[in-house]
């Protein structure tokens, strides 16, 4: 698993990256009450808004950590947005992106680096 400074994670299998937000992000967001996932087929660039998570109080964008085409979206979050809080780094994933530029992964942090980054916040 790799991480961004915006607290997204990616898990790569072959040329497809599963994307979610980290436990730290889920904690900061508070109880998630609504999730908007991208449509399958949408093309995103690294840093584009990929999904929206809403707590009681506010809406927050989730950014694409990698560029590519959305090949699957987590439709279960529509009925169970609380999954993002319960298992952010597993069942709470938002989308799967077919990588168009796998080299982008190199610039992301590994878990040790991400945890070091969190300790500076």
């Amino acid at each position: 698993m790799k991480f961004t400074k915006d607290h997204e994670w990616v898990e790569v299998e072959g040329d497809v990256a599963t994307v979610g937000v980290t436990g730290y992000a889920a904690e900061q967001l508070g109880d998630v009450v609504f999730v908007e996932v991208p449509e399958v087929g949408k093309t995103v660039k690294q840093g584009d808004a990929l999904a929206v998570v809403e707590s009681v109080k506010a809406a927050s964008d989730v950014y694409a950590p990698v560029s590519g085409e959305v090949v699957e979206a987590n439709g279960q979050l529509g009925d169970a947005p609380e999954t993002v809080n319960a298992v952010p780094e597993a069942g709470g994933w938002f989308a799967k992106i077919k990588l168009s530029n796998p080299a982008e992964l190199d610039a992301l942090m590994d878990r040790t680096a991400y945890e070091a980054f969190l300790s500076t916040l």
Partner: protein
Amino acid sequence: MSDQDLKKTPLYDAHVAAGARMVPFAGYSMPVQYKDGVLKEHLWTREHAGLFDVSHMGQARLRGDNPAKSFEKLVSADYQGLKPGKQRYAVLLNAEGGVIDDLMTARPDDDGLFIVVNGACKDNDYAIIAQALKGEATVERLEDRALLALQGPEAAAVLAAHVPQAATMVFMDTAAMTAFGTDAIISRSGYTGEDGYEISVPAAEATRIWNTLLEDERVKAIGLGARDSLRLEAGLPLYGHDMDETVSPIEAGMPFAVGKSRREAGDFPGADRILNELAGDLKRLRVNLKVLEGAPAREGAEIADETGAVVGVVTSGGFGPSFGGAIAIGFVPPALAVVGSKLKVIVRGKPQAAEVVTSPFVPTRYVRKI
């Protein structure tokens, strides 16, 4: 404003010690939530009792030969008819009938009027009142007092254990009394739609009283995040969002803020506009919207009619935890401001179905009789 410039309420240290997330609000560093988070804090208040620090709000005394008569020059309420032991809501009006602030005025004792105004507005309010009433009434800011709100279905039982007199009060009753071993002004009122009390105490005593109330297992500290979702579900407009200097109390759906005797006399600022609006000449009206699909519509989201034409704007909105869905307050032309009216809210460019529903979203539980 940097964080260093933010003011602190007397309860600041207690909030930080409890693990609150502190945010700037009305010039103060205030707890937006504690460890449980907004959702659980909201539901706790609806089921048990929530304790809120609202010490950022302005507390003042208005004194003079006839402070109620003097104050009526600036507000829409009938304050000469306000009986001892009662408080009443009003709006402070500009010359065009727009709302400078909304406020509560009380007669808890014989010491003039006790006024509670919004924290973000208080400096401006006091300046306007002092200037307009020069020579006949004076405003004393009570900077040495804190304000606590205890809200929820178990609030009455909790407070009665410490203050037996509180149990004899009904909604909008107020009294100055000795409570918690100090001088307190207690009203049976609040801003959550629940039964409850607002408790004004000396700043130096606030932390002791806060902690005393929290010793009761029915009570949890609740942040301003849940205060906002609670008041939204109760259909209560929030100044600076659902009301401002361009909005009249009639447009805001608060006609009760204009007293009957005042309507007859027409002797308040902006009376021409407000009386015309009461007679039906309205350009827009506050509505409560249930968002039927999609994401919560938040402040600033446009409201469209069924043809897609933009007809208004959302001024408060979010997710109602007790309502169980997305709700909003907004303004639309009167013809569309009827229950059942089908509208759209535009969220991130997407039109979503919404419907005008009755206010409040969640039934209020004020205790009007005992």
